[in-house]
Structures are given as C-alpha cells and as structure tokens.
C-alpha cells in the first residue's frame, strides 16, 4: 500500500513530449489577399473573384461601419450613450464576415459586432438602444438573422451551435456563425461549443476576432499558441486570416460557411486584428499598453488598404470616395438624430416580457408600482 520498492525510471526522448513553442501572435500561416499597402496577392488555398461593384461595396461598408463607430463614440462622449464598445480597427474582419453571411445564415454576436449588424441590416440606431440604456437591443433577431448582443463572454457560441443543430434537424440549407474574442477562447462554454459542433458535425463557423486584447490582458494570458490551432484539438480545421484584409476575410469565411452548409462540419476562423481603441469608453488603455503598438497597427488600417487597392486598380476614384464619405455623413446624421430621439421607456414597462405567459407574481408587483407611481401623479 505504499510506494513500490526499488525500481528504475521511465524516460522519454526529448522529442516525444516537446511542442513547438510558437508565439501566439506570429506565424506565416496568415491568409492574406491584400497587403497593407493595398497590393492584391494570391494565396494557394483561398481566392476571391468579385465584380467591381462588389469591391466598391466592401469599401463603402468599411467606411460606413467606421462612421457608425465614430459617431457612437462621439455620442457617448456627449453623454447620449452610457457606454460604447468601439470596433475601431476591426472593420474588415466584421465586414468580411458579415458580407459572407446570406439570408439562410444566422449570426450570434458579442457586444462589439456593429459591423456585422450593419451587414445584416440592423439599423445602427436600433443598435444604440442598448448602449443608451433604453433597451437591451431592440431588433428582432429572427427578422435579421442576427441574434441580440451577448455580453456574458462565450455564451453565444453554444447558442450558435444549438442553432446549427437545429438547421441540421430541419434539413435546411444554411449555417450559424458564432462571433467571439481572443479572451473568450478561455471560457468553458466556447470549448464545449467546439466539442458539440465537432461531435454533431454542426453547420457552424466559429469566427474569433483576435484583437490581441481582452480588456487589459494580452493574448499571452489566454494561449501559448496561435488561437486558430485550438480547433485541431477538437477535430476540425482552423485557419488564421489577416483580419484587416477584408478580401481575405471574405474569402476564408465564405469557404468555411460553404463547408458548413455542405455538411462538412465546423471551422474555426481566427481573424488576426487589433483593437485600436479602448476596450469600451470606460477603459483607459494607456494603463496597460504601449502607444508604439498602436502605431504599428495604424499602418495596417483596413480601410486605407482597400482604398489603395481601389485606386491602384482604377475601381475607385476621388469622386467615388467622396460619394462614400457623403453617404457616411448622412448615416452619421441619421444615427445622431435617431439616437437623440430614443426615448426613455415608461417605468411600468420594466415588467413587460419577463414571461411569454405572464406571471401572477409580476401582476401583483406591476399593480403595486402603478399605484405607487400614480400616487405621485395624484400629488402633483
């Protein structure tokens, strides 16, 4: 019942247990179709062939999405929003993914997917309700194929997986897409979603925007190896794409969605990008990261490279760019006006929609609050 007597020692050759210690933020495996300088390049595995209008459309999307973000940030500073989670720098990742989704597909966002929301047809004004504090997200997810923002890190990846299992059971054509961040990759739920998706070969694409930071924590606090490699531990492919290259993101995401719809199961896409702004308007990134890092990433700006590409290739000229800017100005005006018009809800509505079928307990409390509020009215 105690330790075995004598005995030698087990031994392994050095190689058997060694793992390549890869820096999680580097590696040549990055899929790119457009260099930071706006030069179109080929990739052995992925290609994208769009018509001119579509390329221009992507540029337009990027600009519009950034404008939504800028305007919302301004509105927050002016006290019109309680909070804003900026997507600055992640426009290409979101537009590339968002434009890959079709009406058959259903996206499950975090709190930062304003660009995907835009692509899915959610009016940015509706989006602001949550950040202004007048609702928790005012759109109908089923109408838009776009679930409400999920704030609890990682939860939505399981919802997306379940939805994908539903598509399978309906014998339908389509796929689910789960958005999440680098930080989220550590959550149990995300890994359970990987297990489920793999076991059921569910039609789902896991789209991880690795923006290098989870609030103040760098990627090294979540993983020692590139995140896309997580997938291979669960038996499905992972791919890392340049998240600031809208063309590459679109090519990779469309391929993964197609694969999912065909019944070949999940894919993990790691869109390698950078959170240019603070985590949210409440955050102060100067406490934890160097300005130099930001400068490096400015050189990889997703909009600039697309603009350079359009200019070089002759698909876009000054007039076009001006048109887009003008459209963005109009969108900004729309957002501002719409935001200011978002009225505070009537207090008594706080009881609405707790249950689909109502509840005697709530009826009683609603009654109490109504009487109480009325007593003030009466006192006036």
């Amino acid at each position: 019942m105690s330790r075995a007597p004598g005995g030698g020692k087990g031994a392994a050759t050095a190689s058997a247990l060694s793992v390549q210690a890869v820096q999680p933020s580097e590696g040549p495996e990055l899929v790119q179709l457009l260099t930071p300088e706006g030069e179109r390049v080929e990739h052995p595995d992925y290609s994208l062939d769009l018509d001119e209008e579509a390329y221009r459309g992507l540029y337009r999307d990027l600009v519009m999405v950034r404008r939504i973000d800028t305007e919302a940030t301004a509105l927050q500073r002016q006290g019109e929003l309680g909070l804003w989670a900026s997507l600055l720098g992640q426009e290409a990742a979101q537009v590339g993914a968002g434009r890959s989704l079709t009406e058959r597909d259903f996206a499950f966002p975090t709190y930062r997917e304003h660009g995907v929301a835009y692509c899915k047809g959610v009016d940015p004004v509706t989006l602001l309700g949550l950040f202004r504090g007048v609702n928790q997200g005012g759109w109908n997810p089923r109408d838009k194929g776009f679930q409400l923002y999920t704030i609890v890190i990682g939860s939505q990846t399981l919802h997306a997986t379940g939805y994908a299992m539903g598509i399978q059971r309906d014998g339908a054509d389509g796929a689910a897409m789960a958005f999440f961040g680098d930080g989220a990759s550590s959550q149990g739920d995300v890994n359970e979603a990987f297990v489920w998706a793999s076991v059921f070969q569910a039609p789902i694409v896991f789209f991880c925007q690795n923006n290098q930071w989870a609030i103040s924590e760098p990627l090294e606090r979540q993983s020692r190896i590139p995140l896309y490699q997580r997938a291979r531990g669960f038996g499905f492919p992972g791919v890392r794409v340049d998240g600031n290259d809208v063309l590459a993101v679109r090519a990779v995401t469309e391929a993964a969605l197609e694969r999912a719809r065909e019944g070949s199961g999940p894919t993990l896409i790691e869109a390698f990008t950078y959170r240019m702004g603070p985590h949210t308007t409440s955050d102060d990134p100067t406490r934890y990261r160097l300005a130099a890092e930001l400068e490096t990433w400015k050189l990889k700006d997703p909009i600039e490279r697309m603009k350079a590409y359009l200019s070089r290739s002759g698909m876009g000229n000054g007039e076009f760019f001006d048109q887009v800017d003008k459209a963005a100005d109009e969108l900004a005006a729309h957002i501002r006006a719409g935001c200011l018009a978002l009225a505070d809800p009537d207090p008594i509505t706080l009881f609405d929609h707790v249950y689909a079928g109502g509840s005697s307990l709530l009826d009683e409390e609603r009654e109490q609050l109504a009487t109480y509020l009325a007593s003030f009215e009466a006192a006036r």
Partner: protein
Amino acid sequence: MATLTLGKALNEGLRKSLEDDSKVIIMGEDVGRLGGVFRVTDGLQKDFGEDRVIDTPLAESGIIGTAVGLAIRGFRPVCEIQFDGFVFPAFDQIVSQVAKMHYRSAGHVKLPITIRIPYGGGIGAVEHHSESPESYFCHTPGLKVVTCSNPVDAYWMIQQTVANDDPVVFFEPKRRYWDKADVDTVTASRELWDAAVVRSGTDATVITYGPSVKTCLEAAAAAETEGRSLEVVDLRALSPIDWPTVIDSVTKTQHAIVVCEAPTYASLSSEIAARVSEKCFFSLEAPVFRVTGFSTPYPTSRIEEDYLPDLDRILDAVDRSLAY
C-alpha cells in the same frame, strides 16, 4: 385509466409531447440508448430517433446552451440534468441566458425550454445526488419552477410544461419515481399553476411540495389518530406560487407549517413563511414554522434520515404551532 409509477408517467407524458409536437426534442446525458439513469426516457430514442432524443456530450452548460440555440431555431427542447447536484455547471446558461432572453429581446425570442431535474434525497446516494436546489431557480426572475408529487401530476404536468412557452424548471421527486397510482390519461386534473389541497383539514395547514407531500400526508394521517385535523397543500408550482389557495387555507386554519427538504436559509420556504406571515398577519395564531433540511451540505446517506423532514419532525412542529 392506467396504473403507472411516477417515472413511467413521466415517460408516457414525454412520449405524448413528442407525438403531439414534432418540434419537441429531448436531450441530455444517457437519455437515448440507456433511457436515462432513472429510465424516464426509456424507449423514446428507439421510437423517435436520434435526432429527437439526443445523447449529448458530457457537459451541462453545453446541454442548456445548445438548447437555447435550438429554441431560437424553433424547437422545444426538453433537457435532462442527470441529478440535482449536476445542474450547477449549467447555472450560468440558465440564469443569464435562459431566464433573461425573452426579457432581453422584448418578447421577440421565446425559449420554451423544459429543464428536468430529478431532485431530493432519501435514496441512499453519494454526494451531489440528493440535493434540493429549487430555491436558486425560484429566486431567478424569468424562470418558472414546478414539481410533481404523484403519477397523475407527473403525467400531466410534464406535458403542460413542455407545451408552455416559457422556460420551466421541472423538478422530479426522485425517491417517488417508483410510487404507483391510477392515471387518467384523458383529462388533466388541473392547470399547471394551481396548487392542490390534497387533504382537507381544519387545525393547521401544512404547505409542501414534491417528495415531501407523501410524508406530509402520512403525518396528517398520523395526526388524525391524535384527533388533529391537518390540511395539506401541495404547491405543485413553486414559482409563481398559487397564493390564493395557500392563504385561504391558512386563513381558515390559522396555523401554518412549511415542509421541504431544502435548507431553510434564504430559500423558497423563507418566502412562503414571509408571505404567509404578511398576508395572514391577523389570522395566524402562531408563527409559521418550517421543517426543512438543515443548513449543512446534504449529509452522507447513513444519516440522511436525520436530515430529511420526517413524520415526527412535522408532527413536532404541528404541536409547537398549536401550543403557541
């Protein structure tokens, strides 16, 4: 009319739900081939296929989280949590997602999810297999919570729950799975949200639910031999509670005893005592007494009988109440 055990009544009820609505699916650990560790889903995978009766990977958060997605897609998932003590890995999904989705979406997204949980002690099991976690769910707005105490309710309540558009946690009194009764499979006896006066009496009201109902009925029978007339209310719905039935009874008897297995502190039994104390302030002749599990983790099986409310402890509380 069929004679069924409580477990079999649940099984038949689930079968009916699967037949009635093609969107109903069952998911959980070992619910398929094995038919569940208590056989509540016995034979259902065979008859409804692997797509509708799904053996899932071993992770409760995954079970509930994917059920949310399936519900968004239009399904009505019935999730089994194998034992009470294993619901906690799913707690986040239940509290922050299942309970809040309808509210968050201003009614756009309904989640008609049933979460079945065998609960309670008395079966001589090891740790985590005998707990009564109902209060956690009752305290969570957005959830509804029900429990059955007999085969008739089991058969009907499970169907009513599955057909309900809100997420409901359905607690099954595991040590009563083998109790038998005649079940009218044609007409439901009552609405899901109604409490039942399962024994009429005049001297004191015993308010209880789930596995303790039987114990309370036995206590009432014993009390009768001592000339005491106890009214027993089986709550059935734990959130929300059918207060009128409870309050009418206590107003009549002027004495109330709450009986359940869960620890007392900050619990559903606290709520019942608080509410009855408030609503029957002028009629109560004695404080509301609670006969519950103690404020310890569920103990080892060889002393669980001392932990669980039993006939004697109930009668002792009745005595104290009437003597107050």
